[in-house]
């Protein structure tokens, strides 16, 4: 009996374990990954390379790296490496280290192509000369110093070699490489007789024909208290130390694009995408950044203070500092140092290298309804009409893999979707779009034209023996087009033409899933590293960029389809540095639990910080069935994600917003409507990102760089510079502690109540909303009329919500264009700046705009304005407008709490002034 009880308890234990069915063992930890294990064994100071032949050539500072005392026992490592330091506008230093091509290396190491945008090269500053300095504390060694930007210099210390950026004033360091002497570059060499280069993991063998070729080095960020970035991980926003004192389970942050089944909400393991870009921030209010352009598997340690206690290397101590350790399996050193100094400067510097985020179409900033799967045309029609029946706006209906004929993309299941064009036209008649899924695995079926075409042309990735690689995915046996090859990318792009994609219409857009690539029978559920791409490039060398190239090719397809006039919308799961140019990403297959709701915020913040601003998590959680309360909270939070989509696994219960009783329907409708009222604001923010890289959703410290209390806050976030939002991450929450940064007040979005800044407020929480505030001193444009979708809102009038600061002033912006074409690039947009001061609200243009709109401003709401005035004078025309108390929001029984200018009637495209009398 007792035995039975024990067994039963054990069974329960096992069952509870399977709730987290993340299979940790199926993925390589660092100590199962030889290059990572080797690198982590290195001791500080192990690098003996010194910079020789330092000179200026072709506008770069160049040198050769050779070991100080050649190791006799290791003849392979003595070939000199080439080093070059280039300098670009706006405080960007690029450091490249590679094997010397003139010394005939065994193979050209892979350098990631098509990520650095071509415009970047035009920003290069041609160095004329370098000064040589003896820098204090460097034991009399020499350093070469070159100009970087006003106030910054790039420095190459010769012996031992070290590269860093410093502030001219006070010689304060900003970012440095190899300060701890951990640099290591495994040069390609000939295999020795007794060597076994193969690597085996869980039944898979990696032939590794080129042997060890990894690179590792340390990077230090000065004046820094926290580091952020390097997505994609489900973990906190401020990166926790992974090694050193106080770190229990030491595992570096891994960057390796993987399809992880039911990923855990707190883990340094790599998931779907990789951006090897890190940002640091500290008390000084300054930020800096470091980007390593390398698409091989990468592992990054954030080192805890005191990690190098026995290292014996002296580092400048007056500055707080964070050390990190970067390891990659292959590739070259192609790194970018960003001097900052502000957080937004670092982001701008990063996107000047990798490109600005694409300007999305207006519809794609609305709400998306997805499910694996909407069964058939009738189901689609039903779901669509239910939105109308419940007066809930939405813009896009999505079809997952089951819409295809046997998972052959670009086809339709003839039974379930016999009339795809008619179906899309019906949606389009209501201004709605459809998205279908197109994955990179192509069914190996001779009767499938795409496969036949690809295999005949030799367009598939090859296995190590040179045959078409054959892996397993949804359709069964599948092959993968080699998207590294530009020719194959254009071949792929052609497949999206209306002729080729039978059943597609102009209102159809695309979703790229499984592009890590996911291979069910591959090592770690992906492609073998020894698979071969164009020009003999091994998959290991570009793995993390495969999804990026696929996303790129698909976006190019949509662009071609619309004659270059229609902005593509492509959602991708995998991503790499630069993916922001091609569309949106989401955080993959999350789960319907509170922890995943919570971690979605640091994940979206991290993506935004690293350029990928158009991102979101599946509302409701992909796996599992959310409690109605969780679902409601998720809609309330998701309404502020840049990308707002509800999605669910096919084994879950239906969860469209009207299925949980009237009250919950009302709550979800309200959450979605908040998003729609804020669309003008969101669209303006997307434009800001499109010209500056500054993300739509940002961390508090990006707006309040000196507010230390905000540095590690990842429960709350800013939407633009005006709104602060904090999710509710627990069931039945009655209170929430919300930190409001800065000195100015904040106005509750719902009630208009003012709260002091620089304080933690313990707030009562209702089911109706999550805490959200408008910052004093800002103006937010809204459209307060509800429609079926964003399409019908185009002509609707605006509301301006002005939150006054302590000096009764505020400002904000509005950006408008046609919402779909590229005419905005030729000036077809409206960009206004609104300024309120001295009781006057003025609208003035930003830049030259040539776009017309018949939209007017129907209402101006003033928060923090002393009531009393009865009328306002509108110029030009000297019309009078009434002032009264009105509600702050519409769509419910909201009390009249806010001073409201009624019907000023001014046109949004014009200059005007409203004076309060």
């Amino acid at each position, binding site marked *: 009996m007792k*035995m*039975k009880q024990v*067994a*039963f308890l*054990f*069974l329960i234990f*096992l*069952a509870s374990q*399977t709730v987290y*069915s993340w*299979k940790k*063992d*199926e993925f390589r930890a660092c100590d199962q990954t030889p290059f990572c294990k080797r690198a982590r064994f290195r001791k500080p100071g192990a690098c003996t390379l010194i910079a020789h032949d330092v000179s200026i050539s072709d506008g770069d500072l160049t040198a050769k790296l050779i070991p100080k005392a050649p190791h006799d026992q290791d003849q392979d490592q003595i070939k000199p490496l080439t080093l070059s330091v280039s300098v670009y506008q706006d405080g960007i230093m690029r450091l490249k280290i590679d094997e010397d091509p003139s010394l005939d290396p065994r193979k050209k190491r892979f350098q990631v192509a098509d990520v650095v945008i071509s415009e970047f090269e035009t920003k290069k500053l041609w160095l004329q000369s370098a000064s040589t300095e003896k820098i204090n504390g460097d034991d009399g060694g020499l350093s070469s110093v070159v100009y970087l930007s006003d106030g910054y210099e790039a420095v190459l210390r010769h012996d031992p070699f070290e590269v860093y950026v410093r502030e001219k004033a006070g010689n304060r360091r900003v970012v440095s490489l190899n300060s701890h002497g951990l640099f290591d570059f495994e040069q390609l060499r000939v295999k020795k007789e007794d060597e076994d280069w193969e690597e085996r993991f*869980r*039944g898979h063998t990696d032939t590794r024909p080129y042997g060890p070729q990894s690179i590792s080095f340390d990077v230090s960020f000065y004046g820094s208290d926290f580091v952020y970035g390097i997505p994609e991980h489900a973990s906190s926003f401020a990166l926790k130390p992974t090694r050193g004192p106080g770190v229990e389970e030491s595992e570096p942050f891994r960057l390796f694009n993987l399809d992880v089944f039911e990923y855990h909400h707190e883990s340094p393991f790599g998931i779907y995408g990789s951006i090897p870009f890190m940002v640091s921030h500290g008390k000084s209010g300054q930020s800096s950044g470091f980007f390593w352009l390398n698409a091989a598997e990468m592992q990054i340690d954030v080192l805890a203070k005191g990690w190098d206690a026995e290292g014996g290397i002296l580092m400048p101590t007056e500055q707080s500092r964070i050390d990190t350790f970067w390891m990659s399996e292959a590739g070259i050193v192609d790194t970018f140092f960003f001097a900052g100094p502000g957080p937004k400067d670092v982001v701008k510097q990063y996107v000047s290298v990798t490109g600005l985020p694409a300007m999305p179409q207006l519809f794609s900033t609305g709400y998306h309804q997805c499910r694996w799967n909407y069964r*058939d045309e009738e189901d689609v029609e039903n779901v669509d009409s239910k939105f109308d029946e419940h*007066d809930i*706006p939405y813009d896009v209906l999505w079809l997952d893999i089951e819409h295809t004929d046997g998972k052959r993309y670009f086809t339709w299941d003839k*039974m*379930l979707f016999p009339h795809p064009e008619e179906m899309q036209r019906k949606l389009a008649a*209501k*201004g709605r779009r459809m998205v279908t899924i197109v994955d990179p695995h192509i069914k190996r079926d001779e009767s499938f034209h795409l496969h036949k075409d690809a295999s005949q042309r030799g367009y598939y990735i090859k296995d190590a023996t040179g045959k078409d690689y054959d*892996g*397993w*995915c*949804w359709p*069964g*046996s599948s092959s993968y087009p080699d998207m590294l090859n530009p020719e194959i990318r254009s071949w792929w792009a052609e497949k999206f033409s209306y002729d080729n994609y039978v059943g597609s219409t102009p209102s159809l857009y695309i979703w790229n899933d499984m592009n890590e690539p996911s*291979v*069910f*029978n591959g090592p770690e*559920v992906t492609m073998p590293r020894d698979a071969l791409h164009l020009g003999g490039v091994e998959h290991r060398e570009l793995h993390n960029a495969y999804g990026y190239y696929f996303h790129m090719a698909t976006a190019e397809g949509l662009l071609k389809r619309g004659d270059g006039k229609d902005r593509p919308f492509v959602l991708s799961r995998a991503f790499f540095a630069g993916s922001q140019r091609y569309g949106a990403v989401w955080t993959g297959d999350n789960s319907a639990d509170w922890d995943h709701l919570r971690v979605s915020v640091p994940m979206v913040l991290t993506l935004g910080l690293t350029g990928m601003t158009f991102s979101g998590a599946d509302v409701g959680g992909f796996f599992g069935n959310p409690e109605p309360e969780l679902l409601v909270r998720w809609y309330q939070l998701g309404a502020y994600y840049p990308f707002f989509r509800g999605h669910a*696994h*096919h*084994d879950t219960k239906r969860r469209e917003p009207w299925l949980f009783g009237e009250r919950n329907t009302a709550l979800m409708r309200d959450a979605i*409507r908040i998003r729609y009222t804020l669309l003008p604001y969101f669209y303006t923010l997307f434009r800001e990102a499109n010209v500056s890289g500054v993300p739509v959703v940002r961390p508090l410290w990006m707006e309040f760089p000196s507010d230390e209390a905000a540095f590690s806050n990842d429960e709350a976030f800013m939407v633009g510079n005006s709104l602060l939002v904090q999710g509710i991450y627990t069931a039945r929450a009655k209170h929430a502690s919300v930190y409001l940064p800065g000195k100015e007040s904040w106005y509750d979005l719902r009630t208009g109540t003012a709260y002091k800044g620089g304080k933690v407020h313990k707030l009562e929480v209702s089911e109706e909303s999550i805490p959200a505030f408008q910052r004093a001193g800002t103006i937010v444009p809204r459209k*307060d*009329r*509800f*429609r*079926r979708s964003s399409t*019908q809102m185009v*002509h*609707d*009038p605006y509301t301006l919500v002005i939150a006054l600061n302590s000096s009764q002033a505020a400002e904000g912006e509005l950006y408008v264009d046609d919402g779909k074409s590229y005419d905005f690039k030729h000036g077809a947009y409206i960009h206004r700046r609104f300024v309120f001061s001295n009781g006057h609200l003025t609208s003035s243009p930003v830049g030259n705009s040539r776009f017309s709109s*018949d*939209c*007017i401003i*129907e209402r101006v709401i003033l928060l923090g304005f002393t009531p009393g005035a009865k009328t306002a004078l509108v110029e030009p*025309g000297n019309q009078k407008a009434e002032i009264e108390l009105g*509600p702050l929001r*519409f*769509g*419910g*029984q*909201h009390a009249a709490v806010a001073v409201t200018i*009624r*019907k000023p*009637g001014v*046109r949004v495209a014009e200059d005007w002034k409203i004076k309060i009398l």
Partner: protein
Amino acid sequence: MKQRLSLMYLSFILIISSRESSSSIPSNSFIGIPPQDEDYFKREIIKCKNGSKKFTKAQLNDDFCDCPDGTDEPGTSACPLGKFYCKNIGHAPSFLYSSRVNDGICDCCDGSDEYDGKVKCPYTCHEAGKVAMESLKRKIEVYQEGVILRNVEIGLAKRAIARDKAELSRLKNEREVVEKNICWMSFLFHRLRWQVRKLEQEPQEKDDKRNEKVENEESGPDKNVDRQIEPMKASDVEKQGKAGESPSDQNEKDKHESSEGLSREELGRLVESRWTGKKMKNDQLNKHIQMNQEEGGPDAGYEESVVDNAGRSSTAQYKIGVQDLKNSSDITTPSGKSWLDKIQETAQNFLQSVNLFSIPVVNLDANKIRKEYNHYTAKLSDLESRISSLTEKLKFDFGKQNKFYLFYDRCFELKQDKYVYKVCPFRNATQEDGRSKTQLG
């Protein structure tokens, strides 16, 4: 000067026209109001219907939301809670959400919801009315047909119920007779036994113990129950002993860990099945998994033994036991005692009386009696099951006037695309697609 004037004039026109084009104020201020409400809005000062506020006549349908409940904007999109009334002459009037007003989509068949000139809506009420009328007519026809059908069903049901009830009472009577017969047979049988024994054991002393043993042998069912309990225990023990013989679902999941040795396709299917939730049909794979379970360890094995309650060989006996128990419980009479118990009891009583009074029995053929006895028991059990199924059937709720009574044993099939939907009222509903069958609950 002249130029200036004309410029001013032009800009004046521009301003005027812009004001007109930019707002969607309807020319008829009563648009969107249902006729029965028109009087309400014919005042100078009008109250919001929820009483929260008042507004002037000029504010009615002025394209600015004054009442939180939308009272003042029945004809524009200004208030989210507003409702727009379409007259739809020629068809039925309807209310729209205010979000549909001037949104570029024709919602009312009279086109009245789109008056800002951006789209032209055709007047389709007559056609729509016709269509609606026809579909209504069809509905009525279908309904009428249905009524007839229903009446037929009700009539048939009435008869069927009467028939079934008559059958039930007939069966019950028959049961009584059979029971009596069984009693009698049992009595005769026991008596015969007793006599035979008496003859055999005459020389010996009377032996109560022996008597008891005979009783035990004859009281079959009781004994049976005992026997059934025993194997249950045995199989329990056995199960714990035979840890890790057959894989359970739980384990199958964990065995993903050791996927080495699978063929590439098997591995692909295995990993795929995590997302799809589909069980792999491939038995070979199971075998592989089993073979590869090197790291399973004692813990995993132990877990299996507990989960495995549907194991094959080791639990066969147990299953049979359960089956028997179920059968015997099926034929339990409401009194709580089994009918066999009853017979036994009566037989014992008789036996005792026989013992006491020693009535001699003549010419009784034991075999014949046994045959008869068996015949009647079989008949009784048949009767019992028919009675219980009839009683069960009559217990269901067959709707008003028992109109669904005849659906009891019927199933309906509907073929849609690749699926066949099968609904058996009062039982189950399934969806089949040739390969798999899904219970629809």
